[in-house]
């Protein structure tokens, strides 16, 4: 404290201030007081809870995780049956949350970017449409949107027999969205391998191109080459493996479709609701990011002879992304948290499974603690990423 130093040197004040005016001692007292109050409140709640648990004969601890769950889950990424443990049921729920969030995040970024750019378009009609979309979808509660899409799938769409045929092999009915996929063939495995190899090749090419540019100043068209490698390599493999074109198309048998992939109405409704809602917010983030780069930057870049592609890559994007990424991550986190609302329309994500577990075991505290822990893990991972990103961006900054 600077005041202490001055009072020390100017020893003109003979009467020393009483100790309760010392900010350090006050701070200690205050903090002890606050901690004691919080501690007492915690003690009060914990003792009450323990009393209540004992009186109502509710078990404590996480032992129930090992017990048989004895409830079915509608959709699951891993094999699961009612004979499995609660732990596995919760794992199924967590995976479902991750699945819907992951696909949702990818689609949201794509849609949100398009709408954000459309909002800035010089085309009056497109810009106004984007503005209406953003305002409309932001102002309606996400839960209402989920209910709407769910009702749309269950009430408005026809039975499988009268399914709407959108394109060849894609059907929409009250059993969800059903579409054909290529029939299983070893060629697809090789294609995936070729794609991974392509990624490695692109990485190496990029390094080489940078090095060469630093040394000789000649520019290698990395983007075009990368696109060529990433698309060309799998296509070549596909062609070399005999070019299989057989499709596993859904066929109507009896009351339902067989073959293809069925996406349940719950999943589709959750995905649609989350994506349309969050995309409106992402669009605003993207718009603000692009607008944050002043026009002079583009003009300056053009005047030193950069091509439009280079202007975007080297000047606009690095600056816009610095503004876009932090709010974008928080929107992604919001999407993940909002996916918990899927419990209201019966999509078996983590909160839904945990809710069933609470109902069956009566161990509400453990159940809610599990829900909170899972979401905290998501949030803390995201904020760790954000800190890393901000640090990296700071280093780039002059």
């Amino acid at each position: 404290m600077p005041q202490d130093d001055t009072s020390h040197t100017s020893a003109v004040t003979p009467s020393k201030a009483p100790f309760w005016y010392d900010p350090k001692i006050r701070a200690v007292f205050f903090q002890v007081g606050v901690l004691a109050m919080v501690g007492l409140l915690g003690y009060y709640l914990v003792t009450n809870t323990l009393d209540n648990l004992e009186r109502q004969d509710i078990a404590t601890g996480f032992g129930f995780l090992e017990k048989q769950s004895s409830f079915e889950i509608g959709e699951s990424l891993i094999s699961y049956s009612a004979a499995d443990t609660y732990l596995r049921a919760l794992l199924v729920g967590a995976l479902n949350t991750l699945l819907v969030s992951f696909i949702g995040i990818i689609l949201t970024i794509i849609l949100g970017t398009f709408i954000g750019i459309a909002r800035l378009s010089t085309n009056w009609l497109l810009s106004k449409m984007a503005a209406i979309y953003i305002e409309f979808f932001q102002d309606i509660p996400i839960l209402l949107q989920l209910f709407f899409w769910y009702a749309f799938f269950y009430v408005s769409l026809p039975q499988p027999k009268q399914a709407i045929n959108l394109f060849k092999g894609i059907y929409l009915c009250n059993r969800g969205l059903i579409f054909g996929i290529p029939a299983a063939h070893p060629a697809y495995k090789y294609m995936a391998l070729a794609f991974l190899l392509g990624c490695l090749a692109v990485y190496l090419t990029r390094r080489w191109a940078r090095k060469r540019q630093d040394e000789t100043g000649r520019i290698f068209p990395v983007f075009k080459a990368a696109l060529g490698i990433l698309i060309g390599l799998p296509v070549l493999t596909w062609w070399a493996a005999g070019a299989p074109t057989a499709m596993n198309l859904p066929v109507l048998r009896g009351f339902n479709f067989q073959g293809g992939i069925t996406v349940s109405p719950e999943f589709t409704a959750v995905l649609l609701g989350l994506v349309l809602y969050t995309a409106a917010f992402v669009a605003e983030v993207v718009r603000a990011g692009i607008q944050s780069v002043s026009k002079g930057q583009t003009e300056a870049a053009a005047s030193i002879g950069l091509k439009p592609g280079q202007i975007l890559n080297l000047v606009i994007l690095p600056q816009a992304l610095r503004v876009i990424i932090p709010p974008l991550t928080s929107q992604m986190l919001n999407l993940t948290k909002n996916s918990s609302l899927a419990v209201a329309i019966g999509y078996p994500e983590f909160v839904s499974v945990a809710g069933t577990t609470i109902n069956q075991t009566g161990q509400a505290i453990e159940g809610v603690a599990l829900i909170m822990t899972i979401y905290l893990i998501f949030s803390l991972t995201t904020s760790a990423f954000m800190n890393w990103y901000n640090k990296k961006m700071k280093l780039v900054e002059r």
Partner: protein
Amino acid sequence: MTKERLQTSSVDAIKPPRTNIGVVGWLRANLFSTWYNSLLTLVTLYVLWKIIPPFIRWAFIDSLWTSTGEACQAVDGACWSIIPANIRFIMFGFYPYTQQWRPAIAVVALVALLVYSQFRPNWKKRLIYIWLAGLVGMGVLMRGGIFGLTPVESTKWGGLPLTLLLAVFGLTAAYPLGIVLALGRQSRMPAVKSLCVVYIELIRGVPLISLLFMSSVVFPLFLPEGVTVNKILRAQVAIILFTAAYIAEVVRGGLQGMPKGQYEAAESLGLNYYQTMRLIILPQALKIVIPPSVSILISAFKDTSLVVIIALYDLLKTTQSVLGDPRWMAYSAEAYVFLALVYFICCFYMSNFSRKLEHQLDTGR
């Protein structure tokens, strides 16, 4: 005379070509400036043409507005009749039918208060007292028991009044808590700071629904034997605790926006911490954060719909129970569209207000 005519004719002569002004010019500049823009315009128009006429036919031309559910089955269009037939239940839930004028007055009073508070000349100390009186009055009106009003259990409250009360009470009560948390987070005392940081990050890291779950299943366990708190109040507490963490972050933004000189000037005047905050920092910081606070009010208003999950009868839940009636089951789209419109109008009004306010306050500094 001739000179003047000459002048006017020369002015006429340099008028821009007709294709650059007026409607044609506007169209060319804004819709058909390049081949690419023209294509975009045509595609957008095509999409709109595919969507809007069928929607208008469904919503207005082929629709029924005042009929029974059975009559609706005969038509292709929307069955808006679901709204007038059930409006009292959607708006007021299980509130006794003959007493529903009371929540109606409460809602009107609340909306009037909100509208009154949006004008900046009214932002005086008096406004706080008006609000307090208004909220107490609304509580009395809803609850009854005195002045010859029949008492109505809060378990019967529902619909729009519940939605509004949860949002407005939630924000009003969360604001002081949020300010305290924000100050705590800025504090130099490690214990206070870490408590506040943990609270804020914990709450912001979990979805509201987990707190609502907690309020409905865990909270009763926290209380000593024999003490019960009704469900609406528990949900309200969850919403307050949740909103406070977000307000804390907004207020922290305002506090960090204060130049350091303000703190130093206050210190050099000999003001202590409370005086500095109350007289110098908070009045300025809170002014900066008014627009983001309105955004929080908007999300709090939207988030109240989540109480559906713990089976409170807010606007969304009352609508859903109407849809549970077999006569109206098939008309969920109409009911949800109506509800979306209600939420949209409220939120749009608030966000417009926030934007206008941001503009006004920006020039003030």
